[in-house]
């Protein structure tokens, strides 16, 4: 079965995120109010063949650990779509 996968990789909480800050300022400059805690990372999307959604999830987790995220600086989250 083919599953659509959405991975989010974001800078670890507590690490300086200058890109997030820059966007937060830019949003404020455009008069968007009440915005806080902007963080910017990577969205990774792809399709994967697997026997089940759980298998897909497990497989993608390994991908994240090995390649898609840097454990020193990044956290990841995975969403598998039917």
């Amino acid at each position, binding site marked *: 079965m083919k599953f659509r996968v959405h991975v989010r990789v974001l800078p670890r909480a507590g690490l300086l995120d200058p890109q997030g800050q820059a966007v937060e300022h830019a949003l404020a400059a455009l008069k968007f109010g009440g915005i806080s805690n902007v963080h910017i990372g*990577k969205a990774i999307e792809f399709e994967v063949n697997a026997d089940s959604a759980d298998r897909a999830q497990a497989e993608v987790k390994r991908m994240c650990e090995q390649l898609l995220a840097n454990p020193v600086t990044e956290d990841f989250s995975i969403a598998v779509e039917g």
Partner: protein
Amino acid sequence: MQRVAIVRFPGSNCDHDSLKAAHDAGLDSYYVWHRETDLKQADAVVIPGGFSYGDYLRSGAIARFSPVMSSVQQFALKGGPVLGICNGFQILCEASLLPGALMRNAGLAFLSRPVDVRIERTDTPFTSRYHVGQVIRLPVASGDGRFTAAKETLAELESEHRVVLRYVNAGAIDAEPNPNGSSREIAGICNPARNVVGIMPHPERAADLRTGSTAGADFLRSLAAPAAASAA
């Protein structure tokens, strides 16, 4: 003559500069392509700068899986001297041969300029010809140059005297002394055994009198002929 393997990945672009600087330093330098696993009796390995795999995903993230890296890993474990310059430093961090990571410059833009760096340690194979506290000017050219590590790692690096190179304010009137927001002004570090060194500035670009500076030439000359004079 000492043999230096210059590892080339698809997208390396300081390979030739490193080869030439090593040659000029009196070393027998040659390329090893990333798909090879034979380092050909290297006495030392240099991982040059550039954009291995386009720096896609993260700088150095894909290169670390190249076949050659397992050989580099073994070589390093046995105490062989390994120098990573710029992208080479990033690859060594991704491969966990060095701690920490190099993140987007604080200024968010690629930064190419000369920086002043202080030699903090001379007890590595690549800095033995310098003296502690010596300030030299080298070019940096990188987008991801901000050295970052967990607090404990930073503390460890300091207490084990593994910060090899630090950005300092030695002049340039109106440029930030820390060009990229690196933690503790770190420009270069080494592993606990001190044989693996990673630095962001480019000494190989300051190693030819024809074009101006030879401030960086001693990184590779240290390999060829470690000076006995100074110890840190």
